[in-house]
């Protein structure tokens, strides 16, 4: 064990500063014992200047008889102790110097590590942004490939697509008529009237004996079908007018069965629809008949 550790025993963890101060305290004690030793000599006790210094230092002047050998021995012992303390002190000073240098290096490294940490965080943010952009791009690309695959499988011709587009536009089911106002009964879904006019209501009527709605749809011939469809179209295509059969259901009535007259329109030729539509004031209806 090094001499410092021996000397300080369990107090190894004391800082260098403490150790140096402890060494200085010991040096002070050594000097005090040296001075008291000197003070014990009769020759010194007799000297008035020495007396005044010693009394200022608060060292009692008590001449004690002492053998010269003892005196010498004591002086030599004290001198040796002093030398040892000197060596300790210089070692500690060297240690302190080293510690200071290490501290400076540590500070520099801390600054460097902070700078690098900031760089890493900045890179991390950029990486995250890039990941987000890539993820959204990937998602969009995946959706695109899915639609492409579906379109390939569907094998639709342009003709069919246009025909269907015409079908859903001509009856204003996909977009509103340009002269639509609140209060206009037309809707993007089959209304009550249409629901009651279709085949489903009549089916349930016959099967389960449900009381018919207030305005029973009359049985129709093929021609009559077209005429009645025209009536319904009239109520849907133009501004709402009172038809010969007053249909006074509100939309909050509980319709018994789902029914759509639009089916009948599909079943019959499309010409009546187109005729009705072209008689509209609307200009968005397609006037180019097939």
């Amino acid at each position, binding site marked *: 064990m090094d001499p410092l550790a021996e000397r300080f025993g369990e107090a190894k963890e004391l800082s260098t500063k403490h150790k140096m101060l402890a060494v200085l305290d010991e040096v002070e004690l050594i000097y005090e014992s040296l001075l008291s030793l000197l003070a014990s000599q009769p020759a010194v006790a007799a000297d008035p200047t020495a007396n005044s210094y010693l009394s200022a230092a608060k060292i009692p002047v008590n001449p004690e008889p002492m053998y010269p050998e003892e005196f010498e021995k004591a002086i030599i012992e004290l001198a040796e102790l002093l030398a040892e303390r000197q060596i300790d002190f210089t070692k500690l000073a060297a240690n302190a110097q080293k510690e200071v240098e290490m501290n400076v290096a540590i500070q520099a490294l801390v600054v460097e590590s902070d700078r690098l940490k900031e760089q890493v965080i900045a890179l991390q943010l950029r990486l995250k942004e890039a990941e987000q952009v890539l993820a959204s791009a990937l998602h969009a690309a995946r959706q695109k490939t899915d639609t492409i695959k579906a379109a390939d499988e*569907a094998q*639709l011709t342009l003709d*069919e697509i246009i*025909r*269907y587009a015409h*079908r*859903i536009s001509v*009856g204003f*089911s*996909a*977009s*509103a*008529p*340009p*002269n*639509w*106002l*609140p209060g206009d009964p037309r*809707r*993007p*879904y*089959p*209304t009550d009237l249409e*629901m009651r006019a*279709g*085949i*489903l209501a*009549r*089916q349930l009527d*016959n099967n389960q004996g449900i009381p018919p709605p207030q305005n029973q749809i009359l*049985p*129709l*011939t*093929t021609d009559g*079908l077209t005429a009645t469809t025209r009536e319904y179209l009239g109520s849907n295509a133009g501004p709402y007018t009172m038809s010969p059969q007053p249909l006074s259901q509100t*939309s*909050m009535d*509980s*319709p018994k069965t*789902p*029914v*759509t007259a*639009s*089916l009948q*329109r*599909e*079943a019959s030729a499309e010409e009546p629809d187109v005729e009705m539509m072209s008689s509209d004031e609307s*200009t*968005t209806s397609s006037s180019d008949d097939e």
Partner: protein
Amino acid sequence: MSILPQRILTDEDPQRTRFQVELEFVQCLANPHYLNFLAQHGYLKEKSFINYLKYLQYWKQPEYIQFIKYPNCLTFLDLLQHEAFRRELANPTCARFIDDQQVLFWQHYTRQRNTLLQTTGAPEQAKTTDP
């Protein structure tokens, strides 16, 4: 005078009848008030009904979709596959909200077109009746 409905029901091919019935029903799903009615009467809770809704998804295929006049119904059909949507529909506020949004969306294209016609001052008559 032949009575068409009975002819449909008795003499016609039952497959054709079923086709017509299912076509009508699936399109009625586009009506939020009707959906509210179904929800309030507990139809949307029945397992058989839910299975039927799942079965009806065949209307999305191109060979069937060409008969659909109200394409909104297919969106609602998809939504109806989810339990949460079916539960919410019992609430009349929900049905009214859906109706409002649906009608507003329906008007969206027309409104845009009107605005475009106004701003470009096209020679066609641009009706300024914005609903």
